[in-house]
């Protein structure tokens, strides 16, 4: 077992800095170099990584016991000081860490002994453990950080592979960590990640054996690759596609109009047209049907033009043709295709929908600062917990609320309650109440969970894909992969 895995990634890794949320292409590199304290097992449950166990001593004191005998790639031994420094950087609100908002309640991190750290919280927050399992919760070495290395271009972790070389636009090379703490792993000698921004260039690279593994398989290739014995294909649904609606601008300043849109755009049709038929329609909110917090009783979004018209008439419009708006969307395929399909659908009912195309940096700007009436977007939850809703719908949340001045006291209260509640059944009820209120307000058009898949030559063995929305992070576990010669 062993070999060299050549991976076609969808975008170049421009920045190696830890704790940033840069998407799957970058997780392939970073998550195979860095370890977390906590990660997920094959079923998607929290599992130990550099931590061996953790306990809630009291609602505001969490203790994490650390693994012994782990060494960083530079030879330094991993201990509680490293965990403390990393956690402190991760929760710094003015730093670049993507997890800073989720770790805001952590007031201090104390070293109890060389292999135990204690987290003191300003208020109970059960989301902390899920946050520590996210793909950006990297653990670095204290000595290495203090030595002043350039975090943008260097990496030193405890993971299965050692960062060896980065050539912009050409390749990033990882080599086997012979001293990895998981006995006998990793199997591969080398991982070479080659960036292919263009979808057809990436698929062509696999078909011509330039690479033996690609991420982000274009939907139109799903069936072909599944049927071809020369390739193995793994896919699941994870990210969700939706429309941000501006609740302060007509016509979407009326919840009934927003709801009407949710009944009028046929999700199954969108999935057929833009996701190769492989998506899952959203019937409630952002939790998938297999999520333990999912509430089937709230399921309501179905294609129902009569109901849509009824709602519009209640809102004072006579007909579909009285509605016109500008739909903003980026030129990224997974945004552009559904936006154009939505435009066609709505125009079929007589609505007047004009599309305004923007590039990705503009999309990022609009997400935060507004500037749209309706905007197509695709996202995935940063961590596996219903609290992920807070990134969009809590007052001041950077993913949606700030842009449209969306704010609702009930939603805020329920989110705050959910974070401190540790009893599963009580917590479940809190999020059911949250979703009920959310659907009353319907700030978005909730579209569908879109498929995401990886394809590889059949000789690539051992790849493990996580279920549900975690699936998109599966490329971070190349320690299980080998090439059969």
């Amino acid at each position, binding site marked *: 077992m062993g070999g060299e895995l050549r991976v076609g990634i969808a975008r170049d890794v421009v920045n190696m800095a830890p704790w940033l949320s840069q998407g799957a292409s970058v997780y392939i590199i970073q998550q195979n170099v860095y370890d977390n304290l906590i990660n997920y097992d094959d079923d998607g449950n929290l599992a130990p990584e550099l931590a061996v166990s953790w306990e809630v001593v009291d609602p505001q004191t969490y203790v994490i016991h650390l693994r012994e005998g782990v060494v960083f790639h530079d030879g330094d031994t991993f201990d509680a000081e490293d965990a403390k420094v990393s956690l402190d950087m991760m929760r710094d609100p003015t730093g670049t860490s993507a997890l800073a908002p989720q770790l805001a309640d952590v007031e201090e991190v104390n070293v109890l002994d060389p292999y135990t750290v204690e987290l003191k919280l300003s208020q109970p927050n059960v989301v902390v453990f899920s946050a520590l399992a996210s793909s950006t919760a990297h653990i670095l070495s204290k000595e290495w950080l203090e030595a002043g290395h350039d975090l943008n271009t260097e990496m030193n972790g405890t993971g299965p592979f050692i960062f060896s070389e980065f050539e912009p636009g050409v390749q990033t090379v990882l080599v086997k960590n012979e001293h990895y703490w998981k006995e006998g792993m990793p199997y591969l000698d080398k991982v070479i990640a080659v960036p292919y921004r263009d979808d057809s260039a990436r698929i*062509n690279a696999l078909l011509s054996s330039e690479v033996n593994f690609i991420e982000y398989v274009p939907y139109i290739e799903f069936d072909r690759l599944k049927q071809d014995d020369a390739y193995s294909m793994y896919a699941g649904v994870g990210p969700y596609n939706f429309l941000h609606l501006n609740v302060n601008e007509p016509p979407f300043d009326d919840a009934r109009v927003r709801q009407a849109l949710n009944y009028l755009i046929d999700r199954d049709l969108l999935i057929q047209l833009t996701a190769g038929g492989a998506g899952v329609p959203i019937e409630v909110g952002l939790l998938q049907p297999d999520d333990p917090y999912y509430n089937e009783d709230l399921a309501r979004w179905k294609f129902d033009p009569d109901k849509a018209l009824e709602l519009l008439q209640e809102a004072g419009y006579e007909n579909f043709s009285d509605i016109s708006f500008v739909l903003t969307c980026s030129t990224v395929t997974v945004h552009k295709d559904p936006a154009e399909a939505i435009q066609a659908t709505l125009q079929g009912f007589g609505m007047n929908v004009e599309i305004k195309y923007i590039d990705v940096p503009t999309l990022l700007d609009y997400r935060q600062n507004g500037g749209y009436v309706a905007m197509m977007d695709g996202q995935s939850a940063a961590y596996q917990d219903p609290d992920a809703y807070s990134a969009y719908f809590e007052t001041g949340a950077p993913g949606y609320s700030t842009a449209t001045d969306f704010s609702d006291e009930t939603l805020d209260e329920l989110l705050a309650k959910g974070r401190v509640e540790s009893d599963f059944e009580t917590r479940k009820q809190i999020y059911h109440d949250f979703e009920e209120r959310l659907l009353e307000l319907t700030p978005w058009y909730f579209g569908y969970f879109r498929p995401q898949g990886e394809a590889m030559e059949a000789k690539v063995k051992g790849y493990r894909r996580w279920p549900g929305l975690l699936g998109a992070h599966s490329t971070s576990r190349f320690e299980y992969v080998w090439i059969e010669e």
Partner: protein
Amino acid sequence: MINYIIRRLVQTAITTFIVVSLIFFLVHLLPGDPARTILGGMTAQPTAEQIAAVREQLGLDRPLHIQYLTYLRDLARADLGESLVNNRPVLDDILLRVPRTLQIAVPALILATIVGIPLGVVAARRRRRMGDLVISTISVAAFSLPSFVSGLLLVVVFSINLQWLPASGWVSPADDFAGFLSRIILPTIALAVAPAGLIMRMMRSSMLEQLGQDYATTARAKGLTDQKVVYGHVFRNSMMPVVTSLGLQAGFLFTGSVIVENVFNWPGIGNMLLDSVLNRDYPVIQGMVLVVSLAFVLINLITDLTYGLIDPRIRYD
């Protein structure tokens, strides 16, 4: 001649100054914020506090005119700055990428010339006959074909179906020269198709015009063979507009590589320019535009100097 070159170089400096100033303000006017990209792009939801902290760290919170003056001061010291996204020196990356683009652009220009010029001559000499018709049709198709289409067609045929050549990628000629050669073939052809068509059209019409001139008729009247008329007199005179077009084509090959580099995953300046715009990496965009505009101006200068070689009547003073 020396005076002429000096005058042109001064003009170049002025043009460059105007271009870099324009581009500086234009990129800052674009919506989008490099701080937001640095904090993680599409998948991230950074807070306003985090964005403000990064902007401050990068100096993007300073007034625009101060940033502009700092930029000009650094530029005067030949310092193009560092990438906002990964702190790599802009000049280093440009010097790394330019040769790679030249590795396909120069062969493409040579290929376009050695295919376009002879075909143009043949078409002109066989005007309105079968040969002309066939060549002209091919040339129109060639320069109408977008390079991403010709690129993808080449990949499907030669890489996926026949498996003769690699579909994409670059290797250093120093590490693997044979691998390097096999990888430049398809992008070079994709890049050469359109200019070859254009050069052929230019050559054909220019030559037809010269063949109709009095001196060509006189040469024929005094009994010179067709061969001698065409290659001894007409050919050289026909080259003037073709050289102009070659100069322009050379410039466009540099920028046209944006598309071909994307299709073939060629890590040259085209890919770098695209990335820098998508990251709103201001210093990199500015550096790239500076290099590309300098290349354009210099190629123009070389083109103008070439006229003197073709037509000795042209004097530079």
